[in-house]
């Protein structure tokens, strides 16, 4: 229990550092995280004191807010919906792993029975450093085989499944409205089309055109629109608490990293000569800033990489913070409930009110973050193509 707590504490610290890069919603998240952490330590302390005279199984049932929150915001190999008593209800997802001999193993995650069974020489680790990962086992047992390396995990995890779902949803929505554009050619938009057209026009007129310029923006519209709607739909689906929503897609660093890398790649490929000249040999800067110690080029080259990095971290931290704060408020009900039943009931009123308020705030944040990511991507494209002056 204590080691888990320490692990969580380290992870929390890590998030805290990331959060400083974000915005005001971060501050709330930090305050709340401190609350959670302090609750965890008090509970842990009580446990240590109580463990002398109470049975061992009690600590297993003890509610741990940090654990709950991390289970929800982290990727998983099955989609946990609810628990009935001790039995979890999950949607099993496909496991695809490549072992050290380049053998591909494919099976459903239900084979692992939530970490209680090994299958095909692998098991789902439920404790320790590799918690939640698929690890090799000693043949015929449940023992972790630490001599073998971890397999490459290409599983359709909860996040991957959510990405696929949102991608299909986006295709369905936009191919449908593309058809209605063809059908109602030259007419005013109707239905879903009239709902989405202002957003499409917003991306075009308020993001792409001013950032990239009137002549070159058209080439980047498909990427910017895809990016905007992908982030938006995943942000919004993340607020929906039930399957197939609720996955923390845009609050996952891998997802935001890929999108940031796309922006980085497009920026680099569309950059003109002036952009590279500005990086390597910034005009109008005193020579001693470039020679013998190339301070300016170093700063500029760092800037090339910090731009996508900041994109990645901003979206990740904002969305993660939203999820953590909402889950934190929900967890508070159980934390207080564990101390006193009436305390739990009393806090639940406040918690639910705050969760509703924060969820509404998250809807706003969903739009703002999609806007910011798209706007900054467009700005980077525009900067890369700026004519020398």
């Amino acid at each position: 229990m204590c080691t888990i707590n320490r692990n969580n504490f380290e992870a929390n610290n890590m998030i805290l550092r990331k959060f400083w890069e974000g915005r005001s919603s971060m501050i709330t998240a930090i305050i709340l995280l401190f609350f959670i952490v302090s609750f965890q330590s008090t509970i842990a302390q009580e446990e240590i004191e109580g463990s002398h005279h109470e049975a061992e199984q009690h600590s297993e049932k003890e509610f741990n807010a940090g654990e709950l929150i991390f289970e929800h915001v982290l990727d998983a190999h099955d989609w946990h919906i609810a628990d009935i008593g001790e039995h979890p209800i999950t949607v099993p997802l496909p496991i695809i792993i490549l072992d050290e001999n380049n053998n591909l193993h494919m099976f459903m995650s239900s084979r692992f029975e939530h970490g209680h069974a090994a299958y095909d020489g692998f098991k789902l680790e439920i404790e320790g450093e590799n918690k939640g990962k698929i690890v090799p086992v000693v043949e015929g047992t449940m023992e972790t085989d630490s001599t073998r390396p971890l397999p490459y995990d290409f599983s359709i995890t909860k996040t991957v499944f959510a990405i696929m779902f949102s991608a299909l949803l986006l295709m369905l929505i936009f191919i449908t409205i593309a058809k209605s554009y063809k059908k109602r050619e030259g007419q005013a938009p109707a239905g879903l089309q009239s709902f989405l057209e202002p957003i499409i026009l917003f991306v075009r007129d308020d993001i792409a055109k001013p950032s990239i310029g009137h002549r070159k923006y058209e080439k980047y519209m498909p990427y910017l629109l895809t990016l905007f709607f992908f982030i938006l739909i995943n942000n919004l689906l993340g607020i929906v608490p039930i399957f197939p929503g609720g996955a923390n897609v845009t609050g996952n660093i891998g997802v935001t990293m890929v999108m940031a890398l796309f922006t980085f790649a497009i920026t680099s490929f569309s950059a003109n000569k002036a952009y590279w000249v500005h990086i390597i040999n910034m005009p109008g800067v005193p020579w001693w800033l470039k020679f013998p110690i190339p301070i300016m080029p170093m700063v500029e080259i760092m800037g090339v990489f910090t731009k996508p990095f900041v994109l990645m971290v901003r979206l990740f931290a904002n969305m993660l913070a939203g999820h953590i704060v909402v889950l934190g408020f929900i967890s508070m009900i159980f934390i207080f409930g564990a101390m006193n039943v009436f305390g739990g009931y009393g806090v639940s009123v406040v918690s639910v009110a705050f969760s509703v308020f924060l969820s509404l705030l998250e809807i706003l944040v969903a739009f703002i973050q999609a806007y910011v990511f798209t706007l900054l991507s467009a700005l980077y494209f525009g900067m890369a193509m700026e004519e020398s002056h």
Partner: protein
Amino acid sequence: MDLVLPGLGLVFWMTLIFSILLIILKKFAWKPIMSSIKEREQNISASLAMAKQTKREMEQLKADNEKLLVEARNERDAIIVEANKTKDQIINDAKIKAQSEADRIVENARLNIENEKRAALSEIKTQVAELSIEIAEKVLKAELEDKKKQSALVEQQLEQLNFN
């Protein structure tokens, strides 16, 4: 640490799915949508420009019409004034002509009457002279029946002559 370390599988799938999504949406959604929107916008701006042009033309036409109307009205007024003048002229002419005709007729009548009167008078004079002569003859015949009387008269007459 899992929280801030991107998973290999996730990055792989995300790249794949996002690329596919980008390509499919670009081909089947964004291209037709953006071109439709652009077309419609061009249509709208063209229509608006045409509406403006038409409005300008309408205004021009209206102004022309107004001008024509004013001209027509002026012309009409001029015609009416002219006609009035002509009418007055004609009436005046007719009046003058009628007057002179009437004067002529009256003059004629007066002359005729004068003539008639003169003729009648002269006839009456002749008749009166004849009648006087007849009466004088009859009186003379009666007076001069006796000789004495005749000589007395002659003498008387002579005396008067002497005086004269």
